[in-house]
């Protein structure tokens, strides 16, 4: 039944996350590049270095280190960032919401835009517009988020300076936020001026992240819709006197969504991965941006925490995709 399969998947997810943690842990400690060396001041004595190393627990054996780390993670202690000198968990808590807002805004854009293009493309079947739409889509498919971000910087940031090129909110605004979810909170508390400012900072990132996904959704959904539209039940529905638009939206769409989600669900995880570079380009204070610095600085505790967070996000997204696919297929949902 559904409940059992969900439980099954959660267990699998936990195991996967565990595997991820182990791999990263081992990888980082096998690595050349000593985080301690990066943070000591010149002229520190070997005793100081050793003390620092012991302070961060880097002198014990690999297995011991992992065991200690695992125990503390399970009680919610992710350790202290070596480079930022702060508690990893609170660092993550501060920055994750920014990235989440970005990712979901991009998802909404991708679904709405990609969905519309797919539906319009299906309605334009066998007209001259169809190859036009397909070619444009093919062009968009070739542009990854990285390239979009830079192109947008050029066009909307420099050429026609419409939007700010960095940050999350205008530094001159003194907004007291109760939660790290600036976008949602400003909307919910009716502070529309602040909301608009935050949106302006997010526009180019959301476009850069969402357009590639939109292109993929458009292509896959259109293919699925076209496949559905040649089925017998569509013909029969047409003979009931339905218009073309109703045929696509009411009859074909529900059978096309399932396969589309199955194929594009994974792409959303790529979108989340893409936040790493896009945030960097726009100096946006999310976990992606923090991740790059963490790696460059060999900040082990922070890297581990970040990898766990990313891993958990990926796994959750995969889980959600599986559930959605089942929900849209009556055969799977109702047995």
């Amino acid at each position, binding site marked *: 039944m559904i409940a059992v399969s969900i439980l099954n998947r959660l267990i699998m997810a936990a195991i996967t996350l565990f595997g991820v943690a182990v791999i990263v842990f081992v990888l980082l400690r096998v690595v050349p590049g000593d985080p301690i060396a990066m943070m000591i001041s010149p002229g520190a004595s070997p005793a100081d270095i050793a003390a620092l190393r012991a302070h961060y627990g880097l002198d014990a054996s690999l297995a011991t280190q992992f065991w200690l780390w695992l125990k503390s993670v399970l009680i919610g202690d992710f350790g202290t960032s070596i480079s930022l000198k702060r508690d990893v968990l609170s660092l993550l808590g501060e920055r994750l919401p920014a990235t989440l807002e970005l990712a979901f805004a991009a998802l909404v854009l991708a679904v709405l835009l990609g969905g519309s293009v797919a539906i319009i493309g299906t309605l334009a079947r066998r007209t001259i517009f169809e190859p036009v739409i397909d070619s444009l889509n093919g062009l968009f498919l070739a542009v990854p988020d990285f390239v979009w971000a830079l192109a947008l910087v050029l066009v909307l940031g420099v050429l026609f300076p419409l939007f700010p090129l960095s940050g999350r909110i205008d530094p001159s605004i003194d907004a007291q936020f109760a939660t790290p979810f600036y976008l949602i909170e400003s909307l919910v508390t009716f502070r529309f001026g602040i909301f608009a400012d935050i949106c302006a900072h997010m526009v180019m990132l959301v476009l850069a992240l969402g357009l590639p996904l939109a292109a993929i959704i458009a292509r896959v959904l259109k293919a699925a819709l076209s496949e559905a539209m040649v089925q017998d039940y569509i013909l029969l*529905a047409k003979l*009931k006197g339905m218009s073309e638009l109703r045929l696509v939206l009411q009859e074909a769409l529900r*059978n096309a969504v399932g396969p589309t989600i199955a194929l594009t669900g994974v792409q959303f995880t790529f979108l989340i991965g893409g936040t790493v570079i896009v945030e960097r380009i726009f100096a946006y204070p999310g976990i992606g941006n923090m991740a790059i610095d963490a790696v460059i600085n060999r900040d082990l505790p922070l890297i581990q925490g970040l990898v766990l967070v990313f891993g958990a996000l990926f796994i959750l997204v995969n889980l959600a995709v599986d559930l959605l696919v089942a929900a*849209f297929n009556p055969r799977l949902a*109702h047995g």
Partner: protein
Amino acid sequence: MTSPLLSIAGLSAISDRDGGASILRDISLTLERGEVRGLVGESGAGKSTIAKALLGILPRSVRITNGSILFESRDLLTLSARELRDIMGSEISLIPQDPQTALNPGRRIEAQLTDGLRLQRGMSSGDARRRALKLLEEVHIRDPERVLRAYPHELSGGMRQRILIAAAFALEPKLVVADEPTTALDVTVQKQILRLIRGLQEAHGTAVIFVTHDLGVVAQICDSVTLLYAGKVIEDGRTSDVLAHPRHIYTKSLISAGPRYDRPNAGLTPVPQAVFEQLRREIGIPEGGR
């Protein structure tokens, strides 16, 4: 004399794909209100093409070169898409061949049955639901409540065909096109379905065009029959007349070719090759062509 419900005159069509081969050759037939006419022929005889032309769903590769299809004195071939949409479903409907693929796997039966009622008759969902329940009872479905809530894959082939029949009669159309509705079913179920269609047709006074390749089916429920070969009408008349006194030798051979269940040892006599050759000469089909 009231004019017939349906009057097809001089209908001719060719196939662009086969290099202009004739699919229909000067077809003419009429249908009165409440009449059940069988459209019989082997594969490729043109019966499906006529049905599709009637419903306005001819494939793009088929082109009508001549003729008219008058439904209540309106030529269906000249109507706009919107006008056709108004007629389809409420005045002309279809019982499709394959119950497996004709129902939307993603929608419940209730939604699919009440589509036409809400769309064309503007019924509220409550009224439409009640009407749907009654329709299901008319096609002898037990436990109609459960069936309404079900998805197509939960039901058997025979049940699905009954639902499709119910949907066809839902809006009390004047004409129902039955496209080989029993071909995809078990033999045991076929007879029930035929009786069901005939019963509904008599109760609602609906005219039926029954497309089939089986003369036996025609004998069971058709008032009149049109026999086709290679797109041409070979025989046309009341069923009893045609079966008892067939005019063309092809018809005669077909009738005697059918299995005689009362004389199981009589064997099967296929239609002789000579008959086909004569047919082709009469129709004017060149050697090895169409």
